[in-house]
């Protein structure tokens, strides 16, 4: 309105460019990530719901333990696995939930706003396609792992507090309990596992995001059927399963690369002991996967530019 449009075009332009430049990079990304959380509340509601179910089940299991469980609690040889197992199961179930939420989130991420035409509104704002795709990739790669971490730790703390109140009545003392459950070190190991999984699964999420920006409908089928078809064709044509093995390795291979398999011990063990970050970081599969993820995301950005409402 009050721009000195004709008098001094050059300096006016410069000052306008510099001021937004500082905010250009991070602010739109921050708000775009928040927008994703507004739209997809399942990102935290689903793991919270699973945590609630776990806590309910756990409460019942310690109030009314089976005879076998009760015996294990009091047997020094079986005490450590018996006390630790519910905590591991809780962590596993919440991680699994976060993974599934991440997959379904990605399959809709670049599709939902084309379906409801709101892509026209988002594209009318000064937010680049790169920022949009990065904000959506940031959900499974950073936000969901952090949400899962917070919910798992909170769940385990509540489990420990419930046990501290209830188990002494069943013959397991609070001191024994706390000695068996080094929650802080468990949390560090968990954080490591979450980072490992996010990096390892990055190409899976990248593929899902790319596919979500592509077809007009049935993103799930487009994402799943081509790899499945490749596997079947390979099996029929060559009677080999290299592609299937590759997929399996991508899904669960992180575990053998990032953790040393330890003997089933009965003694309390340091949760940080089996971590092998050096081995993980020197696995070619990690870096190849990240490169593939980068290619998928770059393709998703490019595709997004051509996309409008469907």
């Amino acid at each position, binding site marked *: *309105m009050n*721009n000195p*449009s004709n008098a001094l075009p050059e300096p006016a332009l410069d000052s306008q460019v510099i*001021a*937004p430049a500082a*905010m250009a990079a991070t*602010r*739109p990304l*921050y*708000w*775009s990530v*928040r*927008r994703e959380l*507004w*739209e997809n509340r399942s990102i935290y509601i689903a793991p919270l719901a699973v945590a609630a179910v776990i806590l309910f089940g756990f409460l019942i299991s310690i109030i009314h333990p089976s005879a076998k469980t009760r015996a294990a609690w009091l047997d020094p040889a079986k005490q450590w696995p018996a006390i630790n197992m519910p905590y591991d199961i809780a962590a596993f179930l919440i991680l699994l939930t976060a993974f599934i939420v991440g997959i379904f989130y990605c399959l809709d991420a670049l599709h939902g*706003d084309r379906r*409801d*035409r*709101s*892509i*026209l*509104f988002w*594209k*009318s*704002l*000064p*937010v*680049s*396609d790169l*920022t949009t795709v990065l904000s959506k990739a940031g959900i499974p790669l950073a936000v969901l792992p952090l949400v899962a971490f917070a919910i798992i730790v909170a769940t385990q703390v509540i489990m420990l507090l419930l046990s501290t109140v209830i188990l002494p009545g069943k013959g397991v003392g609070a001191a024994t309990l706390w000695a068996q459950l080094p929650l802080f070190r468990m949390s560090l190991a968990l954080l490591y596992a979450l980072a490992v999984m996010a990096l390892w699964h990055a190409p899976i999420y990248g593929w899902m995001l790319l596919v979500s920006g592509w077809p007009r409908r049935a993103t799930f089928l487009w994402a799943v059927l081509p790899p499945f078809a490749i596997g079947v064709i390979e099996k029929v044509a060559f009677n080999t399963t290299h592609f299937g093995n590759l997929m399996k390795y991508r899904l669960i291979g992180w575990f053998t690369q990032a953790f040393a398999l330890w003997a089933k011990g009965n003694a309390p063990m340091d949760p940080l002991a089996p971590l092998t970050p050096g081995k993980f970081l020197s696995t070619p599969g990690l870096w190849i996967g990240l490169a593939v993820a980068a290619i998928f995301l770059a393709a998703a950005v490019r595709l997004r*530019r*051509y996309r*409008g*409402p469907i």
Partner: protein
Amino acid sequence: MSVIDARALRKAFGVTIALDGVDLRVEEGRILGLIGPNGAGKTTALNAILGLTPYQGELKVLGRDPWTERDQLMRDVSFIADVAVLPRWLRVSQALDYVAGVHPRFDRAKAEGFIAKTTIRRASKVGELSKGMVAQLNLALVMAVDAKLLVLDEPTLGLDILYRKQFYDSLLNDYFDRSRTIVVTTHQVEEVQHVLTDLMFINRGRIVLNCSMEEFESRYVEVTVHPEQAPAARALKPLHERQIFGRSTLLFDRGDRQQLAGFGEVRTPSIADVFVAVMGDQAGETQGAVR
């Protein structure tokens, strides 16, 4: 520098040609109405201007290439598509937060002020608002952006007449000034006639008419004649003739007003009448083309 400068703009979807060599120049401070039948290429032209679709030919909007610099361009360009593009899950307060977060030229207080004049509650989701309220919300967001170019694609589609009138009134009273430029497409031609400064008819990807409203008013003349005078009037080669209550209304391009005054009362026709006259015989052929 023109706000929009297009030369030989072309865009084809398969065998369908949506834009067939469009030359277009829009200067600062104009309100251009882009009028055409369905499938004429209006939305394609707007999409090219907004960087939503690739094209052939030369196009500069505020000196930028919209296709490669859309995010930069959108700091200075605002856009309202037809009413249904705000996502249903978005809350009014979230819409304000988000636009304030990403848009360096968004004046949040101004937007809140516009919303305060309506019955929209800030905690409501877009899905809970009526169509008219969604349009008001979108307009409030857009009017609070200090943009140089505002593009409106059927902004009042599906709204009742009160909202439609209010929409253009707010736009003119609270938003438009001589440093801004507006491009609007609409089928409700009669409602924008008094708003526009420039007019462009587009059909089958080509510009059929391009003139300022002053030029339009001096160029087109309409006169209603008695049946016995009709043959004499027809001899002056009207662009179009239509029958109302047994009397003929003839529309002339560059007609001599004094000569025509002899037949009856001379008027400036509405855009809609000229549109029908210019497009009427071609309109049927554009059915099925890409919009």
